[in-house]
């Protein structure tokens, strides 16, 4: 066995969630070690987009949580030494037909009632805003508060700041065992090189969170849901804000009888337009949703469907080169909400399962976990996020 250390808290997972937890713990003067099996942001945080959006959240608790997190970004970004590429240019949901328009209008009204700056646009307004859009769209919904950033940079920036405040980071240190004191408290986190004695452990291992949970006998219902992306070269500016399609959200979360007019591949692979201009003056296009285990290889059929969907909404991008593809694994939970929670084992916390919202929800997650560990009052009632909500479900069936 390696070196022995003693510390107040151990955070498992060096993605944006673990980084944010570590950052807020360090801000609260909690002595913390982050352990990561690979490099920082080498899992889902290094294979995603940099969304910080409210526009696609269910109005209510979901949108409030997202907004709380979003509102933390401007200040945190300005306090970090590292430029995380934070911009707040808003987002646009495009609407393909009248049926979507109706649903979107209702949805927008509910978001606005929550205090989210969302508004409907007619066709002309949407095209004025993003002239490269296909002329046959019907309208759009703009959410002005939405932002984006460079996800790997966020993890680096948060950890850089945390380190300045005494946090320690241990990469390439997979946790092999967690010893509990008869399941009443955490005793030890063991990696190949170290035994870390601690009272608090935060499981921020994303799609690997179930493995960590098992080490203490907890069932954490997180399933990897693969998404693939294409990266363009730096060429023409196409859109000035994040653009997504409303129809997919509608099919997914709202009216389940609604079927988009898309190809069988798009339907099969859950392909929906996500168009994200980056600070580096290129853009990312997604998205797809599939349950394929831990497979992060790209599939040409999926990628082509993504490219076709992007051209449908931005016909002029046909001649722009794509330079790369990648696939990441969203940590999916059955109710699409993250798990930000204490557990039946005192001192063992879960901060995982953010599916596609991990970047956006990272700061509020870090803040809430730090508040729990420091026994402070919480920024929001998080009972909908408890791990206990899944208890009693015998089998966590994945939707696809």
């Amino acid at each position, binding site marked *: 066995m390696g070196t022995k250390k003693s510390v107040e808290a151990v955070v498992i997972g060096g993605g944006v969630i673990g980084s944010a937890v570590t950052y807020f713990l360090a801000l609260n003067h909690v002595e913390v070690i982050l352990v990561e099996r690979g490099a920082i942001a080498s899992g889902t945080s290094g294979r995603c987009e940099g969304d910080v959006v409210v526009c696609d959240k269910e109005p209510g608790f979901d949108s409030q949580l997202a907004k709380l997190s979003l509102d933390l970004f401007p200040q945190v970004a300005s306090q970090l030494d590292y430029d995380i590429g934070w911009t707040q240019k808003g987002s646009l949901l495009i609407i393909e037909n009248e049926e979507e328009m109706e649903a979107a209008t209702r949805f927008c009204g509910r978001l606005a009632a929550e205090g989210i700056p969302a508004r409907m646009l007619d066709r002309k307004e949407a095209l004025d805003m993003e002239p490269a859009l296909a002329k046959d769209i019907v309208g759009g919904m703009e959410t002005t508060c939405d932002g984006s950033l460079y996800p790997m940079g966020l993890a680096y920036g948060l950890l850089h700041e945390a380190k300045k405040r005494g946090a320690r980071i241990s990469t390439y240190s997979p946790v092999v065992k967690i010893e509990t004191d008869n399941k009443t408290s955490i005793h030890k986190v063991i990696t190949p090189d170290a035994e870390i004695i601690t009272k608090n452990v935060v499981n921020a291992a994303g799609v690997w969170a179930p493995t960590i949970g098992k080490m203490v006998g907890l069932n954490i219902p997180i399933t990897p849901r693969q998404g693939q992306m*294409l990266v363009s070269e730096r060429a023409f500016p196409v859109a000035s804000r994040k653009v997504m399609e409303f129809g997919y959200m509608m099919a997914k979360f709202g009216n389940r009888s609604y079927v988009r007019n898309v190809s069988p591949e798009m339907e099969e692979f859950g392909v929906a337009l996500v168009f994200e201009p980056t600070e580096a003056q290129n853009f990312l296009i997604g998205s797809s949703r599939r349950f394929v285990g831990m497979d992060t290889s*790209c599939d040409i059929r999926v990628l082509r469907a993504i*490219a076709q969907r992007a051209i449908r909404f931005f016909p002029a991008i046909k001649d722009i080169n794509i*330079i790369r593809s990648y696939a990441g694994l969203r940590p999916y939970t059955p109710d699409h909400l993250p798990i930000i929670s204490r557990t039946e084992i005192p001192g063992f916390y879960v901060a995982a399962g953010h599916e596609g919202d991990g970047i956006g929800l990272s700061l509020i997650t870090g803040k809430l976990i730090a508040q729990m560990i420091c026994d402070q009052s919480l920024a929001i009632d998080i009972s909908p996020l408890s791990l206990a909500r899944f208890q009693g479900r015998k089998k966590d069936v994945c939707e696809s």
Partner: protein
Amino acid sequence: MKEKRITQHPILDVPERKEVEFLWNGRALRGYEGEMISSALVANDIHIFGHHPKDGSPQGLFCANGQCSQCLVIADGVPVKACMTPLQSGMLIESVEGLPELPADDEPVSPKKSPITDVDVLIIGAGPAGLSAAIELGRLGIDTLIIDDKDRVGGKLVLQTHKFFGSVEDSHAGTRGFEIASILEQEISELSSVRIWLNTTAVGVFSDGIIGAVTNKTYRMIRHKKLLVATGARERMLTFPGNTLPGVFGAGAFQTLVNRDLVKSSNRVFIIGGGNVGLIAGYHAIQAGIEVVGLAEALPQVGGYKVHADKLRRLGVPIFTSHTVVEAHGKDHVESVTIAALDEKWQIVPGSYKTFEIDTLLIAVGLTEVNEFYVKAKQWGMDAYVAGDAGEIAEASAAMFAGKIEGLKIARALGKTAEPIPQEWEEKAEILKSKPGKVSIKTPPASRSGVKPVFHCYQEIACNPCTSVCPENAIRTEGDVITGLPYIIDEEMCKGCMSCVAVCPGFAITLVDYRKDTQLPTVTLPYEIWKETVEVGQEVEVTDDDGNPLGTYPVKKVLSLKKKFPRTLLVQVQMEPEKAVKAIGIRVQHAEVRPTQTYEEALPMDEAIVCRCERVTAGEIRSAIRNGVRDINQLKAITRATMGACGSKTCRPMILRLFKEEGIDLDQVVDRVDRPLFVEVPIGTFAGVFGEEEDEQL
């Protein structure tokens, strides 16, 4: 326009080509139809193709090979690589200035089904390795498809005007590179089971194991049973301030401009790197009428063949060993280069700076395998093979042999032959890959009668053409091994036919003929530069092995062996016997270029660009390394290096070198994750909205 074109060449034919007009930023220019846009621009003396949106730095041609993503221009509204896009009449070409405006385009599109082709064997790359493998496969009647991104077969063979080293029996030694390409092409054309698709770029391989390739905007899928990756190599770059100025490019890029496209890209070049590529590029420059100001090599001796270095020295090119490049200067184009001497510890010797005025700086500091297809295919569990530079950097002769071997291996794996790989093939392949061996200087023959071949061939390299051409069978190599030095078994056997002089790729054989005049014997010297400079009666400066002048002599006769070696001139002069046996070269560059200034300022080494796509400096990379970064993916996250359009093809080797310079063992460095696509592809092509419907065949 004519002045930037090579209108005559000592070795290459200058074909008739159709002139067309095109517009460059609104200005009417002329070029040749079908030549690459980059060549047409350089021929018009245009070297700046745009400015980088990040820092406004001028961008231009760098690799001329479709790899580096630096030569982007807007052609008819579409961003394209200038070096891979043929010029058409009336094209509107614009430089890329910052971020251009998106053209209005709202045409509805419907994706088509992409063509899918099934083959037994897919070979990526129609260079020496790929073609040689295809010949083996074709002989066994195996269904084989070769794809290549260029418009002709041969890979880098087509850039080589010199006669090849290696083995006569196995790799066409003694024949010029571009002629070997034609021979291989001819052999393949006779094999009915082998198809070649040109202008077809392999762009990626995904988890389904199907190779994606693009031909003229059509995305094709090629399903295969066996894959041979014969994708060759790309050139390495060095980290020095000014390294991305237009006019600083790879030696291979230079050969492409000069030998393939017959563009006189430069007037005065300096070469960094004394391997075979750099030495040969220098020779090609002089053949193209371009002055070679000098060549610098960091090692105490050149790494390439001594005969290549000797050829350059004899023409009058100074070779600075133990010297490195420290900075390229210029505003919008390279104007001068500073080199400096290195001590035993690789540190710059104070006060040793030399600056030369030039218009082109060629970087020839080695090659890196283009192996991403192979690595990825293996990762996906495909039955993939690799041959040539894609597997191991070596001479083209070795690549041909490796191709043969891999071709047979594939045939065996397919169960199409039970023929084992001959043991001697493996042995020969190893010999052809071997680095140049020891040098032993021989004393010339003492007898002053008859006619004598004099071998100025002192270094053990794999080469044997001289042994194959002697009608008397009098020439052998020591120990009868291909790397042995040549000798004549009996001096009396030489009849003076000059075949050995003409065939020698190293220009390392002369004939000294005492039969007419024992006091002033006639020396026959091989010569492949401009014949105007060696006309009968003209005075030529004859040199010894090292390029030292032996004196000036009138040319007596200029011959050539018209049938076999028409382009190798055999220049005869009469010289004193003691000088005649030393004579080997004719100097063509007379005025040695002297350094124009001394240079003593502190060097801004950290300003050197490492990642050209994202304009990341050596300073930023070094600082990250010093802060503990040991993972290129992390380096990418922090600095954006490797994140650009080229997919780290240029900067990855430079980054690894910086790790080494910082004293980090490369075993500790986590390499980057390659994410296909490996080459840029227009979204419309990828999506299948451009190009042909599914109806097989090209």
